[in-house]
């Protein structure tokens, strides 16, 4: 039988604040266990949470980037459950009044554009980590991650394939990255997702029983998990079996999910308003101020790159893969005044160098404006494109300014026609055989002579000027024959 999948996502993103959500312990990754902890984040008796203002503002920014409405009044609630990675045995989260609601993003599907609705974005605290490998009989609890601020982005069940889910998560990830509120490093677990999947036979309306897969921390994993779950549910229904509503754990190594029985009794979370944290309020003006503080987001940049700069969609997307690269490109384009040339040079030359050395755009040792000055020299025919590549290499290796490299290496194009004429005449005199062949009508020899001239000029001859002089000298010889 054919089935239609219905998929919803809960995306958790760690906010890139400097300190934790309820205490001033620093936020970080890795390190020795329990070294970024204090009595507050380890839930010691008598301690109290004090809300981090930046975490709340970042949540608002996430909502604005994802086209949400911001609740002018929101509050925190306690979600009660016992698990040893949660030292207070409750997670401070948001229940009925999240910071953001009713947003969404448009994604591209083979059938055209599709708007995926976001039901809510709420702020909450992360839990710690359990380590299982050291001992046979014990698990160990490390609370360094306890209290790292998280947002949870909850979609409506609007997705219907793993491809759509992948596209959506990638778009959300870019939006959060560009908003400057999260590093979205999936490999460090700073972006994770829970996936809800149900299927129903084609031609029916009633949604099937859904299952939830927890804590998937790669975009590829999300897509694989959805495909595997659709297949598992389809097989069950094909065999006439029922689907159990349950939470399952996705094992990315095995490519399969398993039922999590241990969380069965945790469904009654006994939410109630958090008495230790007073509610959050925003005025319309404050929300607008946060909106204005947002950097230009990738969807706007994409429109600008394609419509205004005339870049291809592929090139635009390539430049948008990281905030640093996109910012670098924009600054190069602004300085040299030629976005298309900037895009080509960056995609071909700069990205190749980065790929070869395994570096990210953040590691480029000079600013986009500096590269812009180099490209301006190419545009103004002050240096040749070929030499520009050599200058770039030196800029990467030495960090020197392009002007200094050009001057030091003598890359400056020779616009003195007298010097070119002398060189051309010397070359023609030294290559009598080739000249004779050309005069006999062998047009191909022109290229050889051109190459000889360029080499003699050490690449500094303006190719057009050299070509013109070479042709006129040859023509003169032809005439004198």
């Amino acid at each position: 039988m054919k089935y239609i999948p219905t998929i919803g996502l809960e995306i958790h993103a760690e906010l890139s604040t400097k300190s934790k959500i309820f205490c001033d312990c620093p936020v970080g990754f890795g390190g020795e266990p329990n070294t970024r902890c204090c009595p507050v984040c380890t839930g010691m008796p008598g301690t109290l949470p004090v809300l981090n203002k930046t975490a709340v503002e970042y949540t608002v920014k996430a909502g604005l980037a994802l086209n949400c409405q911001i609740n002018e009044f929101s509050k925190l609630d306690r979600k009660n459950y016992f698990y040893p990675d949660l030292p207070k045995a409750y997670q401070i989260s948001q229940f009925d009044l999240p910071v953001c609601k009713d947003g969404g993003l448009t994604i591209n599907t083979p059938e055209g554009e599709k708007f995926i609705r976001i039901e809510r974005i709420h702020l909450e605290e992360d839990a710690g980590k359990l380590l299982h490998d050291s001992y046979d009989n014990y698990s160990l609890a490390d609370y360094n991650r306890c209290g790292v601020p998280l947002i949870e982005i909850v979609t409506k069940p609007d997705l219907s394939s793993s491809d759509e889910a992948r596209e959506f998560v990638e778009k959300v990830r870019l939006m959060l990255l560009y908003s400057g509120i999260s590093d979205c490093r999936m490999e460090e677990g700073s972006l994770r997702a829970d996936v809800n999947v149900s299927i129903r036979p084609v031609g029916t309306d009633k949604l099937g029983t859904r299952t939830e897969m927890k804590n998937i921390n790669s975009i590829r994993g999300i897509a694989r998990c959805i495909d595997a779950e659709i297949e598992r549910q389809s097989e069950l229904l094909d065999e006439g079996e029922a689907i159990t509503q349950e939470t399952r754990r996705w094992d990315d190594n095995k490519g399969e999910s398993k039922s999590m029985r241990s969380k069965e009794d945790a469904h009654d979370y006994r939410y109630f308003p958090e008495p230790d944290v007073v509610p959050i309020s925003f005025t319309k003006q404050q929300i607008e101020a946060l909106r204005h503080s947002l950097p230009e987001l990738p969807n706007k940049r994409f429109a600008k790159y394609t419509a205004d700069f005339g870049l291809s969609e592929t090139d635009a997307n390539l430049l948008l893969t990281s905030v640093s690269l996109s910012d670098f490109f924009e600054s190069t384009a602004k300085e040299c005044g030629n976005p298309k040339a900037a895009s080509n040079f960056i995609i071909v030359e700069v990205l190749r160098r980065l790929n070869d050395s395994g570096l990210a755009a953040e590691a480029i040792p000079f600013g986009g404006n500096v590269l812009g000055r180099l490209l301006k020299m190419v545009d103004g025919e002050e240096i040749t494109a070929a030499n520009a590549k050599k200058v770039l290499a030196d800029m990467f290796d030495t960090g020197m300014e392009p002007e200094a490299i050009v001057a030091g290496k003598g890359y400056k194009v020779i616009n003195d026609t007298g010097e070119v004429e002398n060189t051309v005449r010397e070359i023609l005199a030294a290559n009598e055989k080739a000249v004779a062949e050309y005069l006999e009508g062998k047009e191909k020899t022109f290229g050889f002579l051109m190459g000889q001239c360029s080499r003699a000029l050490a690449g500094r001859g303006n190719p057009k000027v050299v070509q013109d002089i070479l042709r006129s000298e040859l023509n003169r010889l032809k005439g004198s024959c």
Partner: protein
Amino acid sequence: MDTTKLTIKEARSLLDSRKISVTELTRTYLDRIKTYDDKIDSYLSVCGESALEQASEAQKLIDSGKGEMLCGIPLSIKDNICIEGTPTTCASKMLENFVPPYTATAVNKLRAQNSVILGKVNLDEFAMGGSTENSAFKKTKNPFDTTRVPGGSSGGSAASVSASLALGSLGSDTGGSVRQPAAFCGVVGLKPTYGLVSRYGLVAFASSLDQIGPIGKTVEDCAIILDGICGQDPKDGTSLSYEAGASYASAVSGGIKDYKIGLPKEYLTEGLNSEVRNALYKSIETLERLGAKVEEFSMPSLKHAVPAYYLMSSAEASSNLSRYDGVKYGYRAENCRSFNELIGRSRAEGFGREVKRRILLGTYALASGYYDAYYKKALKLRTLISQGFDEAFSKYDVVLHPTTPETAFKLGQNTDDPLSMYLADIYTVSANIAGLPSISLPCGYDANGLPIGLSFTGKPLGEREILRAAATFEADFAPEFRVPVL
């Protein structure tokens, strides 16, 4: 020096005029504790050595003329308020060996003024109860009659002040836990406006109701301690920012001429013991003689205050006490093979019966399918009770009521009857529900010579009004005031 009548104010002037040294004063209290606390059982731990060190530091400040109001004043601290490096047990087997690596803000403030901390005093386990009999370690006795309870949950605080085993004390009040034991032990207890005193370092019972409050011999002593501990705290997001104004200690004078005082009719029920009722009426006559106008008013929502209070406080407690799982601190059951066994058994073995009752009630009130019928209903009553008080304070400067329906009962009398214990909180819980300041002070003695408490409740941040009313009454009552004979 007659320690049994000594107040903070008097001690201040003895210290400042060098008639006595801080060390002498501290030793006097430490000696009294050694002599009398076997009888009263108010202290869970005595910090003699550090108290004497603090005393000599305080003396230096006094000698250099830099001593503040509470400098060198020996105080006791309820054992649910954390002091770094000192066991904080909450009178629970669960926290028997817990030594916090941090200090409560209120204690830090007292120490910043160089108060002397004599030790930690007994309470009902996790501050749940009204007799201090729910302590896992000892039963504190009422200094007026050692066969009776001191009240609770701050029974150790009230008894230590009443028996002059400390000049003053910090207690905590979630539903009357400062005021009721103060009434039972014939001393003064004040619950401040919610948010006036930082809760940081107070082991949470019910976060939206808990407040640290002072217990002292006199209204002015309570005001002096309140001056020392109040103020916004960056470590407590519910602590209030407010205009400091003049000190609370200076608010006690001025009299109550033309004060309008309201008395809620709903409190004059059949449960009110006749001797307490007579003391109340006599107090009203006194207040009127002092120039106030006392008038009855009706506030029907008060009838529901007790169940609303128990739903809210137990719900919050069930969540606040979930952290005790045997993993990070506290009692850990032996030989457990799974997390579920570890947590289930640690909690079953570490908590006492009353705590379990509250956890069960609170879990029930929040459980799916019951939230609206119980917890949410209680929050609605919270609105009604707050509105009722708003209305009352549009007419009255303060509200007057008995602190308790009866005087101190016999040890063991109510231990098997949680329901009647809960109902006895009728007069005190509403101030916590509405976040209001309330003070209890002695207004008479029953036929057995047991103290009777009278309460004034004020509008939010209306501490000055209730302190003034209470101090004015207290001055008039002074000739009848008694101290226990140990």
